[in-house]
């Protein structure tokens, strides 16, 4: 998937995650900044999940700011997908 512009999804609310996406030039790789209130317990899991889903979405070069307030895995998944698709200019069909 080719990212075109900055985009975000989610909120700062409790049990949610705010994901901000910025396209990077090809070859730059992924730069993920994760902050979470459960960093110690689930930080690595969340990071792995983000990478796994970016693989699935076919996104290699991207900067992601993820600000987690204890979101469930499926919330994280949904927010990431939405932010990436917004960034790629894909509208809901």
């Amino acid at each position, binding site marked *: 998937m080719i990212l075109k512009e*900055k985009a*975000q999804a989610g*909120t*700062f*609310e*409790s049990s949610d995650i*705010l994901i*901000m996406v*910025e396209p990077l030039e090809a070859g730059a790789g992924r730069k993920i900044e994760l*902050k979470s209130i459960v960093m110690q317990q689930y930080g690595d899991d969340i990071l792995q999940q983000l990478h796994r889903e970016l693989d699935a979405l076919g996104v290699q070069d991207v*900067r992601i*700011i993820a*600000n987690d307030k204890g979101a469930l895995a499926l919330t994280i998944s949904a927010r990431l997908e939405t932010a990436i698709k917004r960034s790629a200019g894909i509208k809901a069909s």
Partner: protein
Amino acid sequence: MIVENTDFRIDEPDLSSGYDVALIKRFLIPMGLNFQPGEVDYTVILYTLNDEIIATGSYQGRTLKYVAVAPNYRETTAFALVVTHLIEKVMEHNQQVFVFTRPENIPYFEGLGFSHIATAAPLISILEFGYKGLCDYQTYLRTLKCPSQLGVVSSIVMNGNPFTKGHQYLVEKASAESGLVYLFVVEENRSVFSFDVRWELIERGTAHLPNVILVKGGYYIVSSATFPDYFLKSEEPGVITQKQTELDIRVFANCIAPVLGIQRRYVGTEEYCATTKLYNETMKDILPKEGVELVEVPRKLAEGDGGLISATKVREAIKDHKEEHLADYLPASTLDFIKSARFEPFREKILVSEKRH
């Protein structure tokens, strides 16, 4: 517009309407905030479904201001909603967001992922959030850093609107007395002369000084992001301005000077502008305590009977069509620019401007 999954409704008031502004003012006054519609670009209000205002927030440029939540709703998600909404708007056009707030609110913004930059106790703190940040600016500084120099490492912060013989005199003096001079050029494009032109004229006017390195001021040195005149009741404007200068100088002393190993800062004495004078006073107060020596250099007198040199006088002379005296104030490089065709758009700006800077 109703906010998903809540009993809140979000609305964008019309800041040109006296009714809407009065509404916001009435809400903010009990919280000690004196709302100035001229100092914001955009405001959002959060209502309950009974049309009771429970929160508001604004921004100007890339800085959030006047974020406040009614006491009864501080346990709810209102604060997060307002900040999320504002950030989304600001980040459409910017890489980062700043927020000006009182020091006691730092934990709330940090809870949302903001990073604290500096505090001028007990009134103002500044925090930032986004793709870019202070670290990126510090990385930029490190790329300019000259390794192992003999002599003192000095700095000057300059707007140069436009670059005069007075500026040149200050840089020459610093250059002669130091091993190395980092010359910060204010990047904010709020002056008559654009950043590109100011930079170019400073570069040309200091080209003969090999130990002077030009540095972009970024958002962290005298920028409108870190320097808005703003808020807080029961404080005289003088105090607020003083706190803002303090904030700017603390950022310089704590986040910028150590990266480049700056030991000294040169400034010209200020005779005309009260704000700049205050800025100098604050520097005298703070910088020595933070390990940076301050050197105040008396302003240079113009040749002939032009009095002290200042960029303000240059702009006034242009405005009054008295350009024959400009040679007393300006080095050849700046004079050439003013005589060139590229100057015309700036001339028009000067002719219509009333501003101090």
